[in-house]
């Protein structure tokens, strides 16, 4: 049992637990806080895979920007407890759990029976996970897509301002 195994087990158990808390708690602010924990655990899992750039982006973008937005909206709307959770746990919910269970079991089954050449990550002698390698590829081969992402984010900002305005134009 090496240290990597210990960290992987700890991070994955915490990630699954915080995801379950996110979808099952009654108050939305509690869900949001559990989701922040979930994002940090996934950043740790990316670090066990040597993907440092994505781990930092996970903390910055998800746990920073997106969660601030979500918490801000929850506080703005002043939402209380969600009573509908235990009020009507009915056929609809049961069908939802069964259907997504079928999807999840199919996914797990196909992933377990993947049979790759080797289950273990091969050792490469080229640095391809560093920020330098990612940046080089991003700004040479993917420069058009990168600029398109910038235009998309600008359009999203304008659309969000227009949607949230009290009176449309």
């Amino acid at each position, binding site marked *: 049992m090496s240290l990597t195994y210990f960290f992987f087990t700890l991070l994955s158990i915490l990630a699954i637990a915080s*995801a379950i808390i*996110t979808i099952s708690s009654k108050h939305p602010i509690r869900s949001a806080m559990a989701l922040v924990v979930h994002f940090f655990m996934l950043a740790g899992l990316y670090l066990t895979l*040597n993907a440092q750039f994505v781990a930092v982006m996970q903390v910055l973008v*998800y746990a920073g920007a997106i969660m601030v937005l979500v918490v801000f*909206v929850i506080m703005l709307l002043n939402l209380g407890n969600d009573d509908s959770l235990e009020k009507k746990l009915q056929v609809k919910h049961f069908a939802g759990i069964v259907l997504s269970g079928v*999807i999840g079991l199919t996914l797990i089954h196909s992933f377990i029976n993947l049979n790759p050449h080797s289950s273990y990550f091969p050792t490469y002698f080229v640095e391809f996970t560093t920020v330098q390698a990612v940046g080089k590829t991003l700004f040479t081969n993917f420069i058009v897509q990168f600029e398109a992402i910038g235009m998309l984010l600008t359009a*999203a900002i304008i659309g969000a301002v227009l949607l949230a305005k009290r009176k449309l134009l």
Partner: protein
Amino acid sequence: MNLINIPLEFYLALSAILFLIGAIGVLTRRNALIIFMSIEIMLNSVNLTFISFAIYFGDTIGQILVFFVMAIAAAEAAIGLAIVLALYRLKQTVFVDEVNLLKW
């Protein structure tokens, strides 16, 4: 570069479990904000699959695709929360089963 001595299937099974949890959240909860958070969980599990395959095959492009997915998720969160705000202003609710304007 140090060796990762965890099998690839562990990461894939973990991402499948997280995707399952997110799907259950989308299908069973009626609060629009919690549906958003469940969608974020599903996007994150797909990102984990991307990263583990990218590291497994020794490829940089997988990480760049994850970067693009994160940018799309940020845009989606901004637009979606603006829609929730507009909806709350119109109907005074965030529960999606009380919004039936397009139902006939």
